[in-house]
């Protein structure tokens, strides 16, 4: 039995045959669609959202076939599966050897964690070279955002190089100490420095002799938990807390971005739809996307606090899986759009 199979069966169990393998795939990949976000809240699987971005469809299908052949899951039609009784027993037994890495629970740090990692990789590499007076090296990424960010970070830093490196080392040690050794190993093996290139995740998993997908989940867990640790104790992490700084609206699709600029100018959904000759529902989709992408996007204009709490309370009752019954309970004065907005916010972080 592998960790990955356990991971997969757990998800099948949560979805109870109501979502297809495709749905699981999008959840693991962290697809930023209203549907996927909605599912993660409805089925109470937020920790899994974007927890295994490196999974391929091919591998997921393969795993699915294997589990079906071993009679652990059975098809209920159209790409949907349920655990069989032996599958359930198997999963429970496996649950004694494996557990879901605890850091996954901090799913609201999902995008923060990724940003954190890109910036950190580059900063560690740069510091490692600078303290040895090496100014010429090839950066570990070509991505613009972390490159620009690191440049600004170093410029603004008040400490000299040696002190800065010592402080960074100290904070990294303290934050990683809160994690299991295996997670910290995976984390540090991927870091590059002076005349030393870090391993890829695949190489790290080979060196540590664990399954690639398990390593990927552990890495996700580590990043989220470390982000949480830093966020909780900003005073203890004066440097690292800066790595969590929010990003701006980059990452939205161009069309959504346009909607955002109109919203900022104070236009209503109807006005934007009219002006852009799009359906109102399309604009609403954009807003749901914005709500889950931008942590600081304020949805108060669309959802009052009172409504927000009413919907949230209903959401917390796990038994409900569809928008309609949520509305039936929460109140017919609430629109589906409002429910989706609340779900979007709930998926990325707390809002009160």
């Amino acid at each position, binding site marked *: 039995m592998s960790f990955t199979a356990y991971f997969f069966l757990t998800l099948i169990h949560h979805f109870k045959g109501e979502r297809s393998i495709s749905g699981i795939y999008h959840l693991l990949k962290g697809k930023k669609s209203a549907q996927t976000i909605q599912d993660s809240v409805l089925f109470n699987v937020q920790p899994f959202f974007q927890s295994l971005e490196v999974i391929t469809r091919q591998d997921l299908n393969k795993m699915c076939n294997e589990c079906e052949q071993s009679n652990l899951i059975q098809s209920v039609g159209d790409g949907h599966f349920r655990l069989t009784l032996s599958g359930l027993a198997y999963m429970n037994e496996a649950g004694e050897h494996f557990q879901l890495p605890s850091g996954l629970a901090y799913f609201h740090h999902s995008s923060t964690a990724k940003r954190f990692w890109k910036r950190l990789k580059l900063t560690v590499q740069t510091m490692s070279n600078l*303290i040895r007076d090496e100014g*010429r090296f*090839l950066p570990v990424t070509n991505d*613009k955002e972390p490159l620009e960010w690191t440049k600004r970070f170093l410029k603004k830093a008040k400490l000299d190089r040696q002190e800065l490196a010592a402080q960074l*080392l100290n904070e990294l*040690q303290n934050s990683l100490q809160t994690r299991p050794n295996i997670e910290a190993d995976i984390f*540090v093996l991927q870091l590059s*420095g*002076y005349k030393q290139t870090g391993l890829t995740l695949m190489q790290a998993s080979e060196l*540590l002799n664990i399954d690639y997908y398990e390593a990927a989940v552990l890495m996700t867990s580590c990043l989220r938990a470390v982000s949480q640790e830093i966020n909780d104790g900003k005073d203890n992490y004066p440097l690292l807390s800066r790595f969590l700084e929010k990003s701006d609206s980059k990452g939205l699709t161009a069309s959504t971005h346009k909607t955002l600029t109109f919203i900022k100018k104070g236009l209503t959904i109807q006005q934007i739809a009219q002006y852009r000759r799009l359906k109102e529902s399309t604009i609403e989709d954009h807003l749901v996307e914005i709500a889950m992408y931008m942590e600081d996007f304020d949805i108060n204009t669309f959802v009052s606090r009172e409504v927000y709490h009413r919907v949230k309370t209903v959401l917390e009752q796990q038994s409900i899986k569809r928008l309609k019954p949520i509305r039936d309970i929460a109140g017919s004065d609430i629109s589906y759009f409002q429910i989706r907005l609340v779900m979007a916010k709930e998926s990325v972080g707390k809002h009160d």
Partner: protein
Amino acid sequence: MIDTILKETFGYERFREGQREVIEDVLKGYDVFAMLPTGSGKSLCYILPGYVLDGLVLIVSPLLSLMEDQVQQIRMLGEKKVAALNSFLTPQEKDDVLNSIRFLRFLFVSPEMLQNNLLINRLSMLKLSLFVIDEAHCISQWGHEFRPDYLKLAQIREAVGKPPCLALTATANPKVRQDILNYLDFKDDRQHIYSVDRKNISLFVDKLANVEEKIKRTIKIISSQPSPGIIYCSTRDWTERLANQIRMKTDLHVAYYHGGLSSDDRLAIQYQFLNDQLDIICCTNAFGMGINKPNVRLVLHFHYPKHMNAYIQEIGRAGRDGLPSAAVTLYTDEDDLLPQALIEKEYPDQPMLLRILNRMEATGAKAGTKGCFSIMMEEGASETAARFLTYQLTKVFPEEHKSEELFSKIDQTIKLRKQKKISELYEVKRWLATTDCRREAYLNSFQEKLSDKVPCCCDACGCLLDDFVKVDPVIKETQRIGWQVRLRKLLGLDKIDHE
């Protein structure tokens, strides 16, 4: 003066063969065609003039991966005024580059980007000191990465104020050379041609009975040969399979590299290789362009390349430090099937072509539109085939509207192209089968003569692979040390073992 710049900016004492001659002619304002062998420091020929001439050096570079490496290389010199424009940038990033263009010293662009009017406009308002075409063999009809965008280069050069032009390549036979000069509209030009022969690389070819034998032989060779080494495979899948085999059967540090990896992973593997953290890299031809690692001792072709040009480019990554190195090609009869199939896939076959043309006529879909492209794909054309066809319809035969005429003309073109590619493939096969000196044979295909005999030339001349003695591995161990120690080594000033 150029000697001082060479020393102060680049840290070199001396020019390598050809560099001085080329640079001097560039500085005099001639149009220059230069053929310098791979690994001879071609890029210096335009970077150095950038520090002498007044104005922007514009470099047209055909391959994206290459472009990124080139930009990095220049940044490593401490130069900040360098940027690249290509279709992989976001609109925002493109804007950033366009807005900062007048502050730049070096700008790399892909040929497609030169079709952008805004860019041409901006460029025409600036002073361009030099117009560089890198990997110029690509712009020949006879070249291998030929793209229609190249045909307009002369026109574009005119539009941006006709700055002097430098065309650089590592490999181009006389036919290709003439083509390049024509396309670029070179008049009063200077040509510098240096031999493609790399004397410190010994050539070996080995025919095996089947794939299993080939894998065995590969493992035997890399176990006894000096590393680091590069192994070229023709598919992504094979790079992974072979790397796994090697990992299981040897204790060498091995990694695979292909276009399917994420860009950060590609960088990591590439840097590990540059840093001597890997013995062997199994890769597709996506690896190697622009990579300047002096101490590669072995280039092994697990699948043979599609043409001699690619072969020369790829083995040219060995022995850039001038020390003895080996180029080994292994092949089996089965290997003949794949390249043939790949060539077939690059073009629509006759029934497919007919179906596409008929559908276009029936639906009124115009060539060059998205809709037309999807018709081609729906009829089973590969992406390359669809792009080829679109080019034929929009650029070569835009005036031809009769379906039958169009069909026979395009069909004719396809036949010629295929013939050419297959004949190039046969050239490789003939070379593999030859019992004469391999070096002489490949120089012949570039219409060169072997000047003097090389000591350890090739298997046909009696050179043995066993003459290459394995030395101590250069690899730094990635031992299993705890994360705390590793982190302190990265960021602490604890003395590191290799300091």
